[in-house]
């Protein structure tokens, strides 16, 4: 067919050259393949089409100088972009090294690379003898050049929540400055992903070449990913969400909304005439499209627990995603390994904690000590587990530490290859740019670094970077290392004319001249641009004043002129002397030969079990006083058999089965594991989502913190089950979580899977913001009247919502019908209405207690518990009749106005009126002595001791609907119990052992061992820090 136009010929001529001229086996890069393909198509087309194709090709492969929209100012730059870099050592990628080779670049693309490559006739030649080429580093998480004013304003076609801004686009707010570019380039980066960081859904990122041109020219990829900040937004004004669980709820609801949005609009498009038009929402539109097209999402977390939580969201919505880590990943290696999601990790190793004075050291946490020790090995552990990871310089206080810290990870066991991969190929792969970036290969973009040696040595300098075929100098050729021993010759008149010179030092060079016993310390040594300047005190040489020396530095040789104090000039020279063995100048630290062990388990801190306590197949408790909290009451001198974690028999003189673990309970008391029906222990990132009056969508289960030492301390008080409740800042709060204190388990391992779910409600002063200060006077409700109406209206809304779904689900033909929007808040309320979710309502005054009873009765459900319920004694008959439980404080009162009528007889009166009563803690401190709280029911109101103990065992178990599992020592129930040194209601007794399902989670003897271990480990780490400090000071 026809001959292509000149422009086209020029455009694809390099392809032909590449194929023909290269002496190595031709390899086609993606562009080249495309070009050849297009050429074939072109050859088979007619003239009209070919003109179109010409236009297309012009668009795809701009010829230098063409395709620029902005008018040219001044004279065009048409320097050919063809370079041949010869004689360099080429590290193409991990484990792929050409000791002496050639790289040919044409128009920003690597045309050839190999040890034998014919040099193109039109190439500019660069001699890289003695230098090394590395693929350019990829910074996959940066805010470089982002302008801060990217918050949406005045646009009401976007998401209602100010933190949901997927429509933000890095490119829109990008104004990349030379200094940003140079800073990153100086660290070895040749490309960067610029990520917006405002809000929760922050928007989409862009990948740019760091060639310092405008974003228009240097963008390699737009909308790389949608970025999610997995943490509480920091704002001055209280707004939703202000808790971690609120953030997770918002993310979850937003993904649901985006999916719904897509479906709703599709359905509307199908049959527009018959239904209401769904809203137009730019934010949801963008998210819906991202979800549909399986675009990538990233989740950035500040700690390892949030990283795990974000993985759950990724799984829940089947997202294609990667993570931005925190540097704490080593704590969760096994859990990260299972998911194999890629992770970008910062290298922000902590400063050594202040341990110099014992007084300060007390305040340093074990976690701080551990993290200081373990952080540099984070990458090693990820590598060992085969989890793909890349490094980012983000989070570094001083970005200049970046390469230093990469080297530190190598010293802590990471193989060099893996480090290189984490800087190049891995991020390229994560970004889906592995065909263009990440290694020095034909057809890839010309992104690489030129160094004067091994890039993983601190002394090595990055001399220049090639980015998209452009050359950037990064550092000058470094000064010749003058440190070492020299023999100096002075052409002094009459005086000593030969001396020895020793130059040493790390950052600053210092020098000493010696001659026999004479020793002169140089006043100053300066090295600049291969010239050396030294100041020598002249006194001991017989000159009053300072002698100045300056000269040129060459390898092994110094030579120049000196100047005596009187101005007289003389010549001097020096030659390098062999190093003596004792001189240890410039020795790199050898990589650690024994890589660090990762022996950190959950909980990651002091008092950690390095594995879950062993499960005893058979346990025989012998001859104890057994408080069963069941029909058997209190049994003296009795035995309990626990087999496979379940109670198998209770009786006297039971036979010990073979291999049983025997607990001699002679003189001891045994009770069921205690249950605290009101706790806020182990909740990360805020107990209250207190912004909105109704937050039924937030879930404590999303934010369980299995590291909370409160759990262990509660175990030490015989507690085995707690009800983790949302706070009382709003009338309808978040969903609760009932857990067993299986210390050492992760969040999921703590949960009681078959416990009916619940939710926190609250009434009275807290929800009407009575004690919040003068600024809080506008949120509905501000009175108890409003509290009733709000709750009533929400339940009505839930009924309407339920009806909407039922109607939709009953449709035979759904396509073309807009589905109802799934609302997680109303879902929870519908569950309450259907009896599948228990209400635990914070309450004080009798009026509000009665009010909620009546609301519940109107809607036909039963209240699970009233919490606190300090005026429950005034309406006990109504509560009993309704069947609501009462989980109260034993004796708190008078801390605010609504509890002025609280009395310690409350529990006894309600109990006597037939209400199921428990005593709770609402406090991590009180929760350690629930047995003593129970004793107060004996003191105030004369409840029997058996019934009093039930206030913290079987009664709360019934309230939480887990009495089929726990709360009493009965055949078939879980073997959860505590062993007490004496009467459990005595203040002089203490808990000795706490067991859950055959595993011993607390034991006083074991605790003493752990105390000693903590002490020892602290001492070890403190010594290590002190030693490192001294080492650092030396340097």
């Amino acid at each position, binding site marked *: 067919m026809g001959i292509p136009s000149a422009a086209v010929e020029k455009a694809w001529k390099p392809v032909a050259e590449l194929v023909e001229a290269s002496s190595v086996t031709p390899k086609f890069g993606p562009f080249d393949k495309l070009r050849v393909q297009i050429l074939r198509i072109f050859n088979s087309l007619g003239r009209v089409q070919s003109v179109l194709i010409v236009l297309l090709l012009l668009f795809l492969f701009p010829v230098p100088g063409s395709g620029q929209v902005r008018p040219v100012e001044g004279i065009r730059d048409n320097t050919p972009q063809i370079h041949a870099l010869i004689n360099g050592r080429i590290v193409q990628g991990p484990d792929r090294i050409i000791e002496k080779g050639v790289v040919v670049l044409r128009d920003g693309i690597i045309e050839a690379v190999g040890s034998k490559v014919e040099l193109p006739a039109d190439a500019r030649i660069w001699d890289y003898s003695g230098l090394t080429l590395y693929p350019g580093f990829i910074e996959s998480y940066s805010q470089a050049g982002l302008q801060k004013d990217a918050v949406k304003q005045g646009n009401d076609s976007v998401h209602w929540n100010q933190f949901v801004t997927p429509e933000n686009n890095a490119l829109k707010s990008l104004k990349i400055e030379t200094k940003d570019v140079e800073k990153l380039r100086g660290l070895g980066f040749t490309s960067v992903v610029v990520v917006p960081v405002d809000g929760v859904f922050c928007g989409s990122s862009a990948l740019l070449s760091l060639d310092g041109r405008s974003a228009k020219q240097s963008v390699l990829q737009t909308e790389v990913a949608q970025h999610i900040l997995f943490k509480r937004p920091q704002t001055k004004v209280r707004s939703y969400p202000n808790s971690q669980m609120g953030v997770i709820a918002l993310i979850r609801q937003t993904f649901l909304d985006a999916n719904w949005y897509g479906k709703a609009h599709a359905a509307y498009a199908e049959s527009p005439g018959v239904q209401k038009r769904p809203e137009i929402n730019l934010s949801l539109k963008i998210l819906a499209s991202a979800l549909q097209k399986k675009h990538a999402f990233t989740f950035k977390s500040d700690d390892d627990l949030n990283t795990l939580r974000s993985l759950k969201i990724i799984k829940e919505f089947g997202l294609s995603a990667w993570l931005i880590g925190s540097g704490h990943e080593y704590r969760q290696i096994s859990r990260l390994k299972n998911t194999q999601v890629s992770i970008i990790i910062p290298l922000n190793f902590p400063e050594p904690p202040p341990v110099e004075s014992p007084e300060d050291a007390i*305040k340093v*946490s074990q976690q701080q000590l551990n993290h200081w020790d373990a952080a540099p090995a984070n990458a090693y552990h990820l590598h060992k587990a085969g989890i793909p990871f890349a490094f980012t310089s983000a989070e570094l206080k001083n970005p200049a530490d970046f390469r230093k810290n990469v080297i530190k990870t190598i010293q802590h066991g990471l193989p060099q290859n893996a480090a290189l991969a984490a800087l190049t190929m891995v991020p390229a792969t994560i970004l889906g740019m592995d065909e263009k970036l990440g290694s020095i290969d034909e057809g890839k973009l010309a992104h690489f670094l030129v160094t004067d040696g091994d890039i993983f040595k601190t002394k090595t300098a990055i001399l220049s970077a090639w980015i998209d075929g452009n050359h950037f100098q990064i550092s000058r050729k470094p000064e010749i290392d003058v440190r070492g021993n020299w023999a100096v010759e002075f052409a002094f008149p009459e005086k000593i004319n030969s001396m020895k010179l020793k130059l040493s030092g790390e950052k600053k060079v210092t020098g000493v001249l010696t001659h026999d016993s004479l020793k002169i310390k140089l006043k100053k040594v300066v090295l600049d641009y291969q010239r050396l300047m030294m100041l020598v005190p002249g006194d001991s040489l017989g000159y009053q004043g300072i002698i100045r020396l300056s000269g040129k530095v060459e390898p092994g040789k110094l030579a120049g002129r000196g100047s005596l104090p009187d101005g007289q000039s003389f010549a001097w020279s020096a030659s390098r002397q062999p190093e003596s063995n004792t001189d240890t100048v410039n020795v790199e630290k050898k990589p650690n030969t024994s890589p660090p062990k990762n022996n950190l388990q959950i909980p990651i801190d002091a008092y950690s079990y390095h594995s879950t306590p062993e499960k005893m197949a058979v346990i025989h408790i012998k001859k104890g006083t057994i408080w069963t909290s069941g029909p058997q009451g209190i049994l003296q001198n009795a035995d309990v058999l626990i087999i496979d974690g379940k109670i198998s028999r209770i009786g006297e003189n039971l036979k010990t089965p073979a291999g049983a673990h025997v607990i001699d309970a002679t003189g001891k008391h045994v009770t069921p594991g205690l249950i605290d029906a009101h706790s806020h222990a182990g909740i990360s990132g805020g107990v209250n989502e207190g912004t909105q009056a109704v937050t039924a969508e937030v879930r404590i289960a999303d934010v369980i913190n299995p590291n909370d030492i409160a759990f262990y*301390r509660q175990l030490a008080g015989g507690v085995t089950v707690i009800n983790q409740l949302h706070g009382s800042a709003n009338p309808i709060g978040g969903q609760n979580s009932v857990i067993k204190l299986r210390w050492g388990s992760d969040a999921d391992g703590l949960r009681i899977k078959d416990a009916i779910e619940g939710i926190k409600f609250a009434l009275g002063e807290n929800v009407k913001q009575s004690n919040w200060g003068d600024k809080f006077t506008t949120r509905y409700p501000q009175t108890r009247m409003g509290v009733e109406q709000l709750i009533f209206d929400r339940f009505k809304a839930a009924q309407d919502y339920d009806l909407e779904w039922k109607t939709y689900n009953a449709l035979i033909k759904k396509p073309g019908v807009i589905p109802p929007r799934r609302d997680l808040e109303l879902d929870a309320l519908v569950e309450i209405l259907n009896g599948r979710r228990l209400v635990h309502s914070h309450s004080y005054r009798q009026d509000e207690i009665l009010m909620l009873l009546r609301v519940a009765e109107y809607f036909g459900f039963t209240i699970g518990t009233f919490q606190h319920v300090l005026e429950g004694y005034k309406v006990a008959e109504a509560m009993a009749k309704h069947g609501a439980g009462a989980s109260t404080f034993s004796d708190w*009162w*008078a801390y605010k106005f609504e509890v002025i009528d609280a009395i310690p007889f409350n529990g006894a009166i309600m109990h006597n009126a037939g209400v199921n009563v428990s005593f709770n803690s609402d406090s991590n401190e009180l929760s350690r002595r629930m047995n003593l709280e129970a004793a107060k029911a004996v003191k105030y109101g004369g409840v029997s001791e058996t019934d009093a103990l039930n206030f913290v065992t079987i009664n709360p178990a019934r309230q939480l609907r887990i009495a089929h599992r726990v709360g009493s020592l009965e055949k078939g129930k879980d073997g959860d119990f505590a062993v007490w040194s004496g009467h459990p209601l005595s*203040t*002089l007794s203490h808990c000795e052992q706490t067991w859950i399902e055959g595993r011993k989670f607390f034991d006083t003897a074991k605790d003493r061992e752990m*105390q000693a271990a903590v002490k020892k480990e602290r001492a070890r780490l403190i010594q290590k820090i002190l030693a490192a400090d001294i080492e650092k000071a030396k340097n």
Partner: protein
Amino acid sequence: MDRFTNIKCMLILLCVSGLSLIFQNNLVASDEVPGKKQKHPIALVGGTIHPVSGETIENGTLLFVDGKITAIGASIVFPDSTEKIDVAGKHLYPGLIAANTRLGLVEVAAVRSTRDYAEVGEIKPNVRAESAINPDSELLPVTRANGITLAHTIPMGGLISGTSAVIELDGWTWEDLTLRGPIGLYVNWPNMGSNPGAAGSKKEKELLKKRDADILKIRTAFAQARAYLKAKDAEAGEKVPYHQTDIRWEAMAPVLNKEIPVLLRVSGLKEIQAAVDWAVSEDVYAVLMTGPDVRFATELLKEKNIPVIYMGTLTLPSRRWEPYDTPFTVPLELHRAGVKFCISGPGSPFDAAHERNLPYQAAMAAAFGLPKEEALKSLTLYPAQILGIADRVGSLEIGKDATLIVTDGDPLEIRTQVEREFIRGRKVQLSNRHTRLNEKYKTKYARMK
């Protein structure tokens, strides 16, 4: 102003201040009537007497006359008209002393109008707790119902908060209530800084700057008080002019004259070290009010002979790495080290309503190794000694106040009931707001049957 106008004014006032005033009126006056002054000798016969200062006496008798204990023992001669009370099977203990409270200075901690414990300003040695004690506070009968007969009530806030007083939890007026005042001058020692992680940060630098400024303020106050008192002393001499009064420095005279101690509120070890150095340099008596970090400073305190009010066994360890039972075992460590100490509650305004649980602070120490006798002393004799009131109270000894309780068991046990209580010989009512409401609603349910 005639009577009618008066009433009219009151009505207007009620309308203006609205509901809150009405509510407060409801809660200001407790219904318990203070005990009558002891008119005739009273003998408690046949109980187990725990003098605390000496051996327990089984089946003993305790006699008190005009509010003072006059005899203890097995065989006692009763004066004429002695009222004999059979306490067979019961136990007699000195009344318990709450050594760190805001009782009387607060009613409902969340309600501002009921808070009187913190005067404005940083240096206010002149304010004194006793003059603002509300004798009709509902909190007092609730507290004393569990055997706490005396409370050391301390003003708070600022650097030098004012002087404290020991009050009896029974009486018509604050003057009746006050056993002794001033007891000590409350000084809040500043946080010495160096929080790990914050070291070198802007926040930490600001904290250290404030610390230095605060310490200088405390030092300056003491120096100025000395200068003032010196100048006033000099007035006796010739040609020395009169100096106008400064009530702040006047109030500090008993401290500088070593008549009363400085009550040094310190949080951690560094604060303890700094505060002790300061007290030694000022040559004043010091009592440390502090928490579990005191265990690191026992040698220093023993050497300087500085007693400790240990504020709260029932608290959480300050740091995650510390043993779970750290706060429980500190009293044992103090005891072993020979440091004089007593046990109190944490003493926040919110704790005032819950001061009745004081005995269990000591009980927990006993459960974790402190000898039980020591635990009991840490609520009676030791606080009396540390607060300088052991001449009057703290043990059952002849000559001391008949301020005591009769129980059905060990007061360290929750299940024990306090059955009788005497404050300086007065029979004290054990009913309170709680028992009244209990009775009221028992009636409700009785009627429903």
